[in-house]
C-alpha cells in the first residue's frame, strides 16, 4: 500500500517537473512569458538587441546580396511607400502553416530577422502539420486571446481561419493575409474583413515554370506531368492551373498526369516513379513545390531515367538552390522570403499606424535555372 502511494506521488512530481522543465526550456526560444507580465521590461530589450547583433553578424558574413534580390526589393518597396514609423515595438503575431516544411521554416526566420531589423516584436506560431486545419484555427484563436497589435496569417485552405479572423476583427487586432488567400467572401458573410493582403501570384508561378519546360522541350514537345500539393489548397490549385494553361496551349505538349503529392516528399517520390512506369517517354515534370520536385528528381535518378527530363519546382528553398547548381534540378520559381516577410511586417505596421494601403500587394517573382543560377548567389 505504501509503495503504491509512493509511486503515485512520484508520478505526480514527475509530470509536474516535466511540464515545468519543458516550458522553461523552450521559452528562451521564443519570448519568455515572465517578461510579458512585467510589461516591456529591460529584459525584453536586451533580447531584441541580442537578435539584432545576431543578424548583423550574419549580415557581415554574407555581405554580398544578390543583384536580383536588390532589384526585387526595390520593386516591392515602391508598392509600399510611404513607409511607416519603425522601432515602436509593436507586437505582431504571425501564424504560418507548419514548421515541418523547410519553406515555412525559412519564412519563420525571415519574419524574425525582419522583425529585429524593423524594431517590431514578432512571434511566429504554426500548425503541427500541413493538413491540420482545425489546429491551425485553434492556434489563431489562442493568439487572438493575447495582446497582439496585428496578426499576419497564412491559412492552410481558404476557409479554415475565418472564425478566428472574425474574432480578431472584433477585438480590434489588424489582420494581414500572407500567401494562400483567406476567403473574403466567407469572411464578409460572418461580418469579418482583412486589413491587408500580400501574396505572390500562384498562377504566374505555375505558368513561368511551365513556359521554361515548354521552351526546353523545343518544337517536338512531348509528355509532361504535374505533381500538385494538397488538393484544394490555394497555392496548389493556382500553380496547377497556371502550368496547365501553358502546357495546353503549347503545340505537341501533352499532359499525361496530374497527381496530388500533398506537398509530401515520399508521396511525390512514389508518384514520380509511377508516372515513369506508365510513361517511360515523359519529358517534363512540374511540381507545385521544391520538396516534391527534389523527390521527383530522386525517383527518376533511382530509375536511371533522369537524363532528358526537365523538372521544375517552386519556392527556391536552399536545398533546391544547391540542386540547381549541381544540375540535379532544372529550375525553380523564386520569390525572396526575406523581402516577402519584411514587406508583410511593413504592411502590418502601416495598418496599425492608420496608413492607407493597396488592396493587394504582389511579391515579384524570378525564374531560376542553371543558366542564371549564378546571379542568385546570396539570395535569401
Amino acid at each position, binding site marked *: 500500500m505504501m*509503495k*503504491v502511494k509512493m*509511486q*503515485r506521488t512520484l*508520478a*505526480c512530481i*514527475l*509530470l*509536474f517537473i*516535466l*511540464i*515545468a522543465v*519543458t*516550458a522553461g526550456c*523552450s*521559452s528562451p*526560444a*521564443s*519570448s519568455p*512569458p*515572465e517578461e*510579458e*507580465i512585467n510589461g516591456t521590461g529591460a529584459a525584453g530589450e536586451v533580447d531584441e538587441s541580442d537578435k539584432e547583433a545576431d543578424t548583423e553578424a550574419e549580415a557581415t558574413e554574407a555581405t554580398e546580396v544578390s543583384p536580383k534580390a536588390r532589384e526585387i526589393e526595390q520593386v516591392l518597396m515602391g508598392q509600399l511607400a510611404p513607409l511607416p514609423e519603425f522601432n515602436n515595438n509593436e507586437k505582431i503575431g504571425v501564424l504560418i502553416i*507548419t*514548421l515541418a516544411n523547410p519553406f515555412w521554416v525559412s519564412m519563420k526566420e525571415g519574419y524574425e530577422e525582419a522583425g529585429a531589423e524593423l524594431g517590431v516584436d514578432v*512571434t511566429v*506560431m*504554426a*500548425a*503541427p*502539420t500541413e*493538413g*491540420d*486545419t*482545425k*489546429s491551425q*484555427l*485553434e*492556434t489563431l*484563436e*489562442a*493568439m487572438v*486571446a*493575447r*495582446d497582439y497589435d496585428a496578426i499576419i496569417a497564412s491559412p492552410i*485552405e*481558404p*476557409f*479554415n481561419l*475565418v*472564425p478566428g479572423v472574425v474574432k480578431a476583427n472584433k477585438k480590434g487586432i489588424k489582420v494581414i493575409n500572407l500567401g494562400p488567400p483567406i*476567403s473574403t467572401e*466567407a469572411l464578409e*458573410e*460572418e461580418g469579418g474583413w482583412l486589413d491587408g493582403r500580400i501574396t505572390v501570384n500562384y498562377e504566374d508561378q505555375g505558368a513561368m515554370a511551365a513556359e521554361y519546360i515548354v521552351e526546353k522541350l523545343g518544337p517536338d514537345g512531348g509528355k509532361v506531368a504535374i505533381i500538385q500539393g*494538397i*488538393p*484544394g489548397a490555394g497555392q496548389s*490549385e493556382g500553380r496547377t492551373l497556371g502550368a496547365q494553361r501553358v502546357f495546353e496551349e503549347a503545340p505537341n505538349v501533352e499532359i499525361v498526369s496530374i497527381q*496530388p503529392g500533398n506537398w509530401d516528399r515520399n508521396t511525390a517520390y512514389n508518384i514520380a516513379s509511377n508516372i515513369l512506369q506508365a510513361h517511360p517517354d515523359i519529358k517534363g515534370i512540374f511540381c507545385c513545390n521544391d520538396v516534391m520536385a527534389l523527390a521527383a528528381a530522386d525517383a527518376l535518378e533511382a530509375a536511371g531515367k533522369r537524363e532528358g527530363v526537365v523538372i521544375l519546382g517552386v519556392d527556391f528553398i536552399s536545398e533546391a538552390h544547391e540542386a540547381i547548381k549541381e544540375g540535379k534540378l532544372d529550375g525553380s520559381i523564386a520569390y525572396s522570403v526575406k523581402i516577402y516577410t519584411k514587406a508583410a511586417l511593413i504592411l502590418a505596421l502601416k495598418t496599425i499606424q492608420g496608413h492607407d494601403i493597396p488592396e493587394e500587394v504582389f511579391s515579384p517573382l524570378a525564374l531560376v535555372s542553371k543558366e542564371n543560377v549564378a546571379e542568385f548567389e546570396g539570395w535569401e
Partner: protein
Amino acid sequence: MEKSKDKIIKISAKNSLPQLLLIFVLLGMALFLSLASPFFLTWENLRNILDHSSLYIILALGMTFVIASGGIDLSVGAVAALSGVCMAVAMKGGLGVGASILIGLAVGAATGTLNGAVISFLKINPFIVTLGFMSLWRGLSLIITGGIPIYGFPRGFTWWGSGHIGPLNPPILLAALLGLFAAILLNMSRFGYYTLALGGNEEALRRSGVSIHLYKNLVYMLCGVTAALGGLVVTARLNTAEPLAGWMLELDSIAAVVLGGTSMNGGRGSIAGTLIACLLLGTLRNGLVILSIPSYYQQLLIGLIILLAVIFAEVRSRKKISGSKPNSR
C-alpha cells in the same frame, strides 16, 4: 455462470484514482499557466479551451465505449469528414438543415454498423478493419468533393458550430450533454454493462446467452454516430465541408480515452476520465500557444504526457492484480 459475472464486475470495478490524479494535473497546469501568462485566465481564453476540447470530447466519448469493449476504431476522423461532406451535399442539393443533419448522422451510424458487422460476424481484428474503412471513407470524401471544400451553408446549420447559447456555444453544450448521457449509459445501463463485459471476458458473456454480435454492432454504431456529430461540429464551425477534415482525429481521441484511464485491453472504462483527459489535452495545446512555444514542442509534450499516464496506469493495475490475488494469474 454467476461466478464469471462476478469476475467481470470485479475487473470492471470503477476506480476513480487515476481520474483524480488527472484533475490534479489539469489544475496544476492551469495554475502554472495562469501564473506564466496574463492571457490564460480570461473568459475568452477559457471559452476557447472548452470550444476546442468539445470536438475531441464528442469523438472520444464514442471511442471510450469501443475501447472499453476491447476494440478500436481508427475510422472516426474519416467518418467525421464523410458525414460532414454528406450533410453539405444534401444541403447544396436543396434539403433542409434538419434533414441534412439527420442524413449525416445516418451515414455515421451506417459506417459504424459496417465496422461492427465486419468485426463481429467475420471475426477480423478491429484495428485492420477500421484502418481499411478509414482509408475507404477518406477516399470517398475526396471523390465526392473532387478535393475541393464545399463552402457556404445556411445560418441554421452554422449555428451548430459558431452559434451562441448564453455565454457558451452549441458544441460545448453538445459535448456536455453527450458526456452526461455517456456516463449514464456506461455506468447504469445494461448496454454499458455488456460493453465492459465484452472487453473483460467476451467468452463468458457469450456463454451467459447475450448476443455478442448485437452489442458489438451497437458499440461501433454509437462510435459512428459520435464521429458524425463531430463532423457536424467541425463542418458547421468552419462553414465548410472539407474532405480532409478530422485528419488524425482518431489518434487524438484514442489518446484522450487511454489517458482518461480506459484500458486498451478492454473491460475498464471511464467517461469522466475521458472528459478530463480531453480538457487536459485542450488546455495543454492552448497553453503552449499562449506561451508562444513552437509547435515542435507541442507534439513532444503531448506524447510524453500520454506515455507517462499510460505507464503509470499500467504499473498500478499490475500491482493491484498481483496484490489482491497473488495466484489469480
